């Protein structure tokens, strides 16, 4: 009996350094595979994988807000749109180099996210969902509206040019954009992981778990919640800018609430509160609708819905939850 009690924590919680080492090894393997990939698959698949990474970044932004801070959002398509349009307008009218549009888009979204986060402070759960959903519905209409037309191009949208690989690298532009997006993704994912591990991150999570307790611990709940909204919008905005560059085109109707719902689905399927899970979410959002269409053209929506329900049955806490479950089962068996 004594022995047993001693064993359990050792199995359930391998010491932190071992876990960290395992995580670093896994990341290194994943990155290596990701770098090799664009040289062995077709261009169209490279393009799709690039988009999946773009979605993964956007979903990570949503995850910071929902998964780690406990705030709902069905409005992230709006931030995605702001990021995309910032990039497109800067490239189209300001002739700014594409890589400089990312920080600009991020900053624009961070500010708008922070500002939207202020009134959102008073709302929770379903009410916050509706408020953010309103933002998502309003965004395409705003983009189409006549006062903004000189910049946004109205319903027509803006077409931009695809960048070539720099320094005479022997890459076609699909491969280059893939590598570029991958680099941005790695930086942003590492930054998110560090943020969550930091003091600030612990405060963000504490607010999710119990905001009253967090307040009594001296955490400025309002400030952190709005800031998280800003950071979350930053990620999604950068993703939007990347998306604009990759697709070479922005138009109001690419950023309807359907995109918000897609990001939300990716969040839940990937795993709420899991950074690595968002990668799976990005792949799911991009590929599953196509798979559904391949299975049945007429009933694509129904097939997609059925897949979604089955996935939720099999992994109610997302891909990350499933991996955790399998991991703990293996750990128990080997002990």
């Amino acid at each position, binding site marked *: 009996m004594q022995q047993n009690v001693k064993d359990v924590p050792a199995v359930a919680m391998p010491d932190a350094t071992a876990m960290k080492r395992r995580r670093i090894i896994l990341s290194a393997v994943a990155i290596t595979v990701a770098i090799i990939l664009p040289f062995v698959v077709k261009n169209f698949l490279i393009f799709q994988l690039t988009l999946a990474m773009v979605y993964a970044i956007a979903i990570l932004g949503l995850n910071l807000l929902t998964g780690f801070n406990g705030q709902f959002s069905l409005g992230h398509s709006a931030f995605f749109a702001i990021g995309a349009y910032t990039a497109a307008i800067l490239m189209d009218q300001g002739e700014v180099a594409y890589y400089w549009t990312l920080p600009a888009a991020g900053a624009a979204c961070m500010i708008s996210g922070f500002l939207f986060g202020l009134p959102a402070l*008073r709302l929770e759960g379903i009410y916050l969902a509706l408020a953010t959903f309103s933002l998502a519905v309003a965004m395409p*209409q705003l983009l189409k509206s006549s006062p903004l037309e000189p910049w946004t191009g109205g319903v027509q949208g803006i077409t931009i040019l695809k960048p070539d690989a720099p320094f005479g690298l022997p890459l076609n532009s699909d491969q280059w954009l893939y590598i570029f997006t991958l680099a941005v993704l790695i930086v942003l994912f590492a930054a998110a992981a560090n943020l969550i591990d930091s003091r600030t991150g612990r405060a963000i999570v504490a607010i999710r778990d119990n905001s009253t307790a967090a307040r009594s611990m001296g955490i400025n709940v309002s400030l952190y919640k709005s800031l998280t909204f800003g950071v979350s919008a930053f990620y999604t905005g950068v993703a939007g800018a990347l998306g604009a560059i990759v697709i070479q085109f922005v138009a109001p109707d690419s950023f309807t609430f359907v995109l918000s719902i897609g990001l939300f689905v990716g969040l839940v399927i990937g795993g709420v509160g899991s950074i690595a899970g968002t990668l799976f979410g990005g792949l799911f959002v991009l590929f599953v609708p196509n798979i559904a269409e391949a299975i049945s053209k*007429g009933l*694509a929506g129904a*097939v997609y819905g059925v897949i979604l329900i089955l996935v939720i049955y099999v992994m109610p806490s997302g891909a990350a939850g499933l991996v955790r479950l399998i991991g703990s089962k293996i750990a128990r068996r080997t002990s």
Partner: protein
Amino acid sequence: MDLFLHQVLAGLATGGIYACMALAIVMIYQAIDSLNFAQGEMAMFSTFIAWQFMQWGMPYWVAFFATIAVSFAAGVAIERVVFKPLRHASLLSHIVVFIALFAIINSVAGFIWDFTIKSFPSPFGTQSLFGSGLISMHDTGMIVVTLILLVLLFAFFRYTRIGLAMRATAENPESARLVGIRVGWMVALGWGMAAAIGAVAGMLIAPVVFLEPNMMLSILLYGFAAAVVGGLNSPLGAVIGGFSVGVIENLAGTFIPYVGRELKLTIALTLIVAVLTLKPSGLFGKVVVSRV
């Protein structure tokens, strides 16, 4: 002034649609403590069933009540088949399943009945009420039916034992079980009722917006807005919310210059968010009193 009055009446007429939808939304919120994003699609599908019944030669009112019965059964079935196994899943997972249902129902309806617009008859006629040119017979009928539904629901929840049990289930499922209420069945019943009310809403709305698989998209959104503004635990609030959203939307579209028409929806939604920020539980929502 005449324009103003006209716009208010027109707003009340569209508000009737929203109120009807909002009522169905509040209904299911009472039963499952969450918003059902597939509710609009369920109502649309019910309306197609009614249309099909009439195509097969059923008289309007027979088709009307048969559709309500079928929808009720379908609502119960969806809960039993899809949601019962997910009882312990998180709210976020539930929302994903709502989205999935949305996609399935929309796609199946399009597959069976295709995406062309169909006209749907009104039992009240479409001529203008008393020849005034302000509001049609159908609009009036719709408002009256909504109000009747409201009264029936009020009486059901207030005076029947099952209504009481359903309220108890929504408020505190654990305590409801402890007094012997079969909570699972109450939730299923709530789904059935919500589907039935949604069917009524769909059949009343279809003569105005025409029948097609995407007819409910924006109506559902307005219905949510109305329900949330009115207070999600208040059927009366939902109906008042529905009428006010309709009126606000119309007045904003007419009287706010320049941005009016284009941004009608945006303005309505902004107002809603403003209301929520000032009064987070809705205009008529009960504030829960609790002692710590």
